[in-house]
């Protein structure tokens, strides 16, 4: 292990290392070049690799993703930045009708290896047009993978895996995690796409956390353990394809499941997990599968309202206690 490194630099290093390894990898997006994006995640890449491989574009999310699809089909490995995830609404067409379907539709004539980075920004008062978590739409798209890193270690490992993957991968990064620091393994490593990670073993209840909610779940687990409750904590990491086997195995042991994610509860990824678990593990469940997630309203700029909107450790602790008692 080297010295501690921030989440955002873990992403940066993963991209830079892959660009060194593979000349077909390039980054593209608004301001990804010299400024390195609005929060500096890709800073320095243009200096090392030049403007041919760190491409600033006009404000055209649809064309950025369309360009990536066409470039990927022609043999390159684009890494695009969409910035705030709300802007992905402008390239749903390209991600869904084109990127996710192309290989299958063309009878395997092409591969579409590309990574799309999109940032969720809950907790920053960024308001209704900048703070949404929209990943679940993309969880419904076969042919597209969706990963949600939660620590500097898997931020780096998942980015490398995403770049090396021969399929389009949506990589959802939380702004509020950018400054989290951790030691990360030296040298090259990947975090496999499509596998959950069991972060804490336990016997009383399974907690599945999605993306940055791992941080809240860890806090909650600490509180719960002090009260003598032993949760098993699973970091979902990939929401498409879902690693249901790991979750099923855990529920078999704990007989209880709660999912925490930042997106709205309604039609969030927790809905799919809950539906599948009750379907496959009906006789193993001692309580309904529960969800700790955002309510069915909009996220506010106003800090008090925003805080109430977002799920957190306190809400998770309360839910677990309710489920167990």
């Amino acid at each position: 292990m080297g010295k501690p490194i921030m989440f955002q630099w873990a992403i940066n290093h993963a991209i830079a290392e892959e660009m060194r390894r593979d000349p077909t990898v390039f980054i593209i997006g608004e301001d990804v070049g010299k400024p390195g994006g609005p929060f500096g995640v890709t800073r320095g890449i243009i200096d090392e690799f030049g403007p041919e491989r760190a491409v600033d574009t006009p404000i055209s999310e649809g064309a950025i993703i369309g360009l990536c699809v066409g470039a990927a089909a022609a043999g390159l490995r684009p890494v695009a930045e969409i910035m705030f995830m709300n802007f992905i609404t402008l390239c749903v067409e390209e991600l869904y009708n084109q990127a996710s379907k192309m290989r299958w539709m063309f009878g395997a004539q092409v591969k579409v290896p590309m990574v799309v980075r999109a940032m969720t920004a809950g907790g920053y008062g960024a308001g209704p047009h900048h703070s949404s978590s929209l990943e679940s739409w993309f969880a419904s798209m076969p042919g597209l993978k969706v990963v949600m890193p939660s620590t500097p270690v898997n931020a780096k490992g998942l980015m490398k895996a995403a770049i090396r993957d021969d399929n389009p991968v949506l990589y959802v990064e939380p702004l509020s995690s950018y400054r989290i620091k951790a030691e990360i393994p030296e040298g090259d490593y990947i975090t496999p796409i499509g596998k959950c990670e069991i972060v804490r073993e336990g016997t009383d209840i399974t907690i599945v956390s999605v993306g940055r909610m791992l941080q809240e779940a860890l806090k909650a687990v600490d509180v719960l353990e002090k009260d003598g409750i032993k949760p098993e904590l699973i970091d979902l990491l990939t929401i498409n394809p879902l690693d249901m086997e790991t979750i099923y195995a855990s529920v078999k042991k704990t007989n209880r499941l709660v999912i925490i994610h930042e997106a709205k509860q309604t039609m969030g990824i927790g809905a799919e997990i809950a539906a599948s678990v009750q379907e496959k593990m009906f006789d193993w469940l001692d309580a309904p599968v529960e969800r700790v997630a955002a309510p069915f309203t909009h996220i506010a700029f106003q800090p008090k309202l925003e805080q109430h909107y977002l799920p957190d450790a306190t809400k998770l602790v309360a839910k677990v206690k309710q489920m167990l008692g």
Partner: protein
Amino acid sequence: MKISKETKIDLFTRMVKIRTFEDETHKIFMAGKEMPGFLHLSQGEEAMAVGTCANLTFDDAIYTTHRGHGCIIAKGADLKPMMAELFGRIDGCCKGRAGSMHFADVKTGCMGSNGIVGEGMRLAIGTAFAQKYQKTKNVTAVFFGDGATGTGAFHESFNMAATLKLPVIFVCSINFYAQMTHKSVHIPIEHVADRAAGYGAPGVTIDGNDVELVYEEVSKAVKHCRAGKGPYMIEGITYRHHGHFIGDPCNYRPAGELEEWLKKDPIVLYEQKLLKEGVLDEKRIQQIKEECKNLVDEAVAFARQSPQPDIEELYKDILA
């Protein structure tokens, strides 16, 4: 075009009001905890906002951007609910939910700022459609930046406004940057107003720091639109004195660029012009500035005393 003395004073006053509001906002934001979220300021671009809105009534509509305080003040919105909104208070124009980037003041015809670059244009054609449908002679002006000219929204909206002959004035403030990226990187030609010809519409490029020039050009555009001749594009060359958002270190700016533009500050230029013309004297100018300062101070006081919204506000007004 002859501009009356009252109009000149009005143009000047509106610009000062915006500047005062934004300077104060900047200070409060920097001070720390009172103003949440992201803040995009428009100091330096006041002539575009004021020259445009001074041609409009409350029955005309505007749409603006993430950098929209200036336009909304120019249109005539009350500073108190605006400031309360920036503070996230219940008396904010949007009950504190929206903040700087997303707010609106519908009764003065301010139909919305927008966090999504370019989208104001797609909405603007709708309000213009309604104006035409209801056989009013009203118009809609939509503000956007150089960066927004890259969006599909720009093309789709202008094209649809042209095919449906909608009364929309497309007002492009070229401040040379889309976030941190220079216009020369993201626009392949010198003047985007040249694109208007591709839709069979008039398009002009003007000095966006000359408030009277903006006023005059927009008055032509308004006449064109009120006559049912379809959209009109005005590109004004201007500059933002601050960074993209407050906190932006601006290290993408070449040395001296800001200083050159500060010399062309639209308010300073106009103040000098009005002094020279004898429309205003030093004393009256001081008075205007103080009046504006008082208005802003009252707005801040209003915001500070307004309570934060109750949690239930999160769940209200989702459906009509």
